[in-house]
């Protein structure tokens, strides 16, 4: 059997795992209409408003 010649250093292990970190939570904004947290540039899932005035639809989702 093949066997690793060297012990893997902590930093090397850490570097290998560097890309596997948990992704950061998306930045949320407060809906100007209903004050719920929502993603920017999208219809507010809570109230269905977008750009304050446009009622895109009533609460469906």
């Amino acid at each position, binding site marked *: 059997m093949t066997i690793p010649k060297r012990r893997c250093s902590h930093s090397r292990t850490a570097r290998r795992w560097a890309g596997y970190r948990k992704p950061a939570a998306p930045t949320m904004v407060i809906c100007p209409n209903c004050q719920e947290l929502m993603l920017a540039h*999208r*219809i507010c899932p809570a109230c269905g408003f977008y750009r304050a005035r446009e009622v*895109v639809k009533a609460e469906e989702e």
Partner: protein
Amino acid sequence: MRHLKSTSKFSRTSAHRLAMWRNMTTSLIVHERIRTTDEKAKQLRRHVEKMITLAKHARALGSGEDKSIAAKQLHLRRQAGSFVRADEAVKKLFSELAERFAERPGGYTRIIKIGSRAGDCANMSYIELLAAEEKLEEKKPAKKAKKPAAKRTRREPKSAKKAEAAPTAEEPAAEPPAAEPPAPTEGGEETKE
């Protein structure tokens, strides 16, 4: 090579893609608003707007008794009909939509993002035809007014660097006039120095 071809293929053969665009265009015209993925919505615009443009050309020709005009209008109608799948959609294009968008120089659709879809997490959006009552926003003058200001703020650090030799005492004196309209000449002088 597909260099510089900005459209994506959606994992479809060209026939499949064309069929998809025709279906979606027809649906959008008939229903005014459809829900689809962001990417499809973005590319659907060009197909829908082409159809509306055909209808607008027909409208611009007028409604005279002239046979040559009628023939041109018929041709435009058939061109639209060869893409759009439903007769009712063609009718709507050449009557209602041509009228509605007569004054609007392109940009007949709006895309509003919804969020991601359960299942594959695709970003979804609504694409809709603008409503008749929506007036043209006079954005252009506002943008023009804004642009010079934005440029000035960006330019200032550069011109300051170029005029490094200038003593620091001059800078505060030069800045207040830069915020006012006659700034371009001010900036020019600084770069010369």
